């Protein structure tokens, strides 16, 4: 039996004494594509940071490929897990290429320069994300969609088996949201990269991920396919308010919409 890529056992975590996650257990198989859902403050980002080792659980354990992540050095962790944050502020005018090169940081020695293998991985990351034409532009001057793409390229250059993404579609317009998620799905399928993404948008999560995990009340409230998790009563319990779940055709992903209190007028205004 193959080991899980990520395994959390009874993980608890508190920020300044306020519990965020308690007794949470989760297994993610290799090459799986999983979306973390939940209302604001339900601990999606915290969970990602626990997996990546930036935060340490107050109790419980986290295993990566069967090894305790607390026993692995920062550098080694960074070789197996790459994180795409919501955004980062770069005070310097780095070019896109220079930002992507930073993805090789965990593989470089203190004094060494980029090897031909490093350069090859950087080129591959540039190509896979389609940022060739903007690689000489200044990162700070890119649009939101371009930035996200470059950040994913940087994570790819890291050559890790696990890719964590924190709200990868936030602040993108709708077709850029599709572009970024298509890229993530493609990388997951063609390269077998394990993907865990915190998602705010239930509908995009349902459409692009085969497994969704709902965080609620400091733990996992539901775990399964979008069809089994995104059901009206459960969503109303988690998010509060009136929600409607529709499936537009056979086999399509469910769509969740709030129900307006006052129905819009039909026909001409």
């Amino acid at each position, binding site marked *: 039996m193959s080991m899980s890529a990520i395994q959390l056992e009874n993980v608890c975590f508190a920020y300044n004494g306020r519990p965020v996650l308690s007794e949470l257990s989760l297994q993610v198989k290799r090459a799986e594509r999983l979306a973390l859902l939940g209302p604001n403050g339900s601990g999606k980002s915290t969970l990602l940071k626990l997996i990546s080792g930036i935060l340490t659980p107050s109790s419980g354990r986290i295993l990566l490929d069967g090894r305790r992540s607390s026993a692995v050095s920062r550098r080694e962790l960074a070789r197996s897990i*790459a994180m795409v944050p919501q955004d980062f502020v770069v005070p310097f005018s780095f070019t896109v290429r220079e930002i992507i090169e930073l993805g090789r940081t965990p593989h470089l020695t203190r004094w060494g320069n980029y090897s031909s293998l490093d350069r090859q991985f950087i080129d591959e990351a540039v190509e896979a994300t389609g940022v060739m034409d903007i690689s000489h532009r200044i990162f700070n001057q890119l649009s939101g969609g371009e930035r996200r793409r470059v950040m994913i390229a940087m994570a790819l250059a890291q050559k890790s088996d696990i890719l964590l993404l924190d709200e990868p579609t936030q602040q993108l317009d709708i077709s850029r949201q599709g*572009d970024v998620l298509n890229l993530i799905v493609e990388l997951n399928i063609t390269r077998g990269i394990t993907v865990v993404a915190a998602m705010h948008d239930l509908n995009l999560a349902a459409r692009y991920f085969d497994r969704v995990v709902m965080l609620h009340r400091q733990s996992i409230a539901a775990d399964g396919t979008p069809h089994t998790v995104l059901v009206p009563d459960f969503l109303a319990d988690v998010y509060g308010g009136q929600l409607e779940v529709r499936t537009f055709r056979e086999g399509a992903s469910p769509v969740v919409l709030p129900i307006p209190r006052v129905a819009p007028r039909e026909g001409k205004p």
Partner: protein
Amino acid sequence: MNLKAKPIVGPWRCETGAQISGKTERGFNVGFHLGFWTLVLLLLAAMVLAATVGATHIQLKVTALVLLNRAGLTHAPRTWSTAAETIILEIRLPRVVAASLVGGGLALAGALFQGVLRNPLADPYVIGTSGGAALGAAVGLLISTHFSVLGFGVVPTLSFVGAVCAAAAAYQLSKVGGRTSVVTLLLAGFALSVVLSYIMSLLMILNDRLQLNLRVLYAWLLGGISVTSWTQVEVIAALILTAGTLAMAFARSLNAMSLGDEMAAHLGVPVERDRVALLALGSMLTAAAVVGGGLIGFVGLIIPHAVRLVFGPEHSRLLPLSALTGAIFLVLADLLSRILIPPNELPVGILTALLGGPIFLYLLRRSKQEYRF
């Protein structure tokens, strides 16, 4: 509706008209190797020039031959006086080499502090070293005994001690629960520096009773290369070259840290450990520079910015190029400080500000894009 994944190369390919020609949008674009070797040659030329010009007239050819003979590269017959050779090798050259070390050390320290604190206004003195050094100098004048450590008098020695202690104190004060926040560190450094320099001002006010040599203190605060012997050069060189070489090992950490502490950790950088090391190395460079030249301002602030404008912010290029540029700049500024108002010397700190300011403003205006640090 087509839900199948599109080809990975998406519709953004043609969004910009940027050329794939190796040219960046930074306005200037000079390759690292070309820049590095040009600067090395410029530094050597500046040093030969500075060893030639002075109160005693010596021909440029003579300086070049003396230096080449000394380096064992040529064996030209001696056509010059012993006095000329002594002036070049024992009087001017130690000072020129010290100026290059101090300038290089300050510019490198500035680049390190700007990088690790992610702040464009950071300079070598940002975490309290200037206040510590100034107070150390004042106390040194107060004691005014004639002891010397490794060829240095009491003022440079106590400045060094003051600078190192102030930096260590600022770091300790900003540590909360084993971690340092960059903002707390900046504020702690600033507050500490202010307190220390006002203690120094208090000493100056009490001067009547304490008989402080204000002229010496003032010259020290404005900065000026005070190195006169090779022993002193060796001490400064040992400190600055060691700290400088070690600092190069952190270039990639600095790059990662520019994305923020969390992202740097995601890239495998032990952030807290590397930050302590960088602050220690930067403070060591600053303190060593203070020993050789007092509190020379502006070099450490503007040289790294000027280098970034031309070569970009990537630290494995920025650090060595800043050190070289700082060295050239201070060798030339020190030369001017010696020859502008003979037989007196102008404090070099005045020149670094008067020369560096306009050059930097020109670069800032010339770059096509808004400068984003």
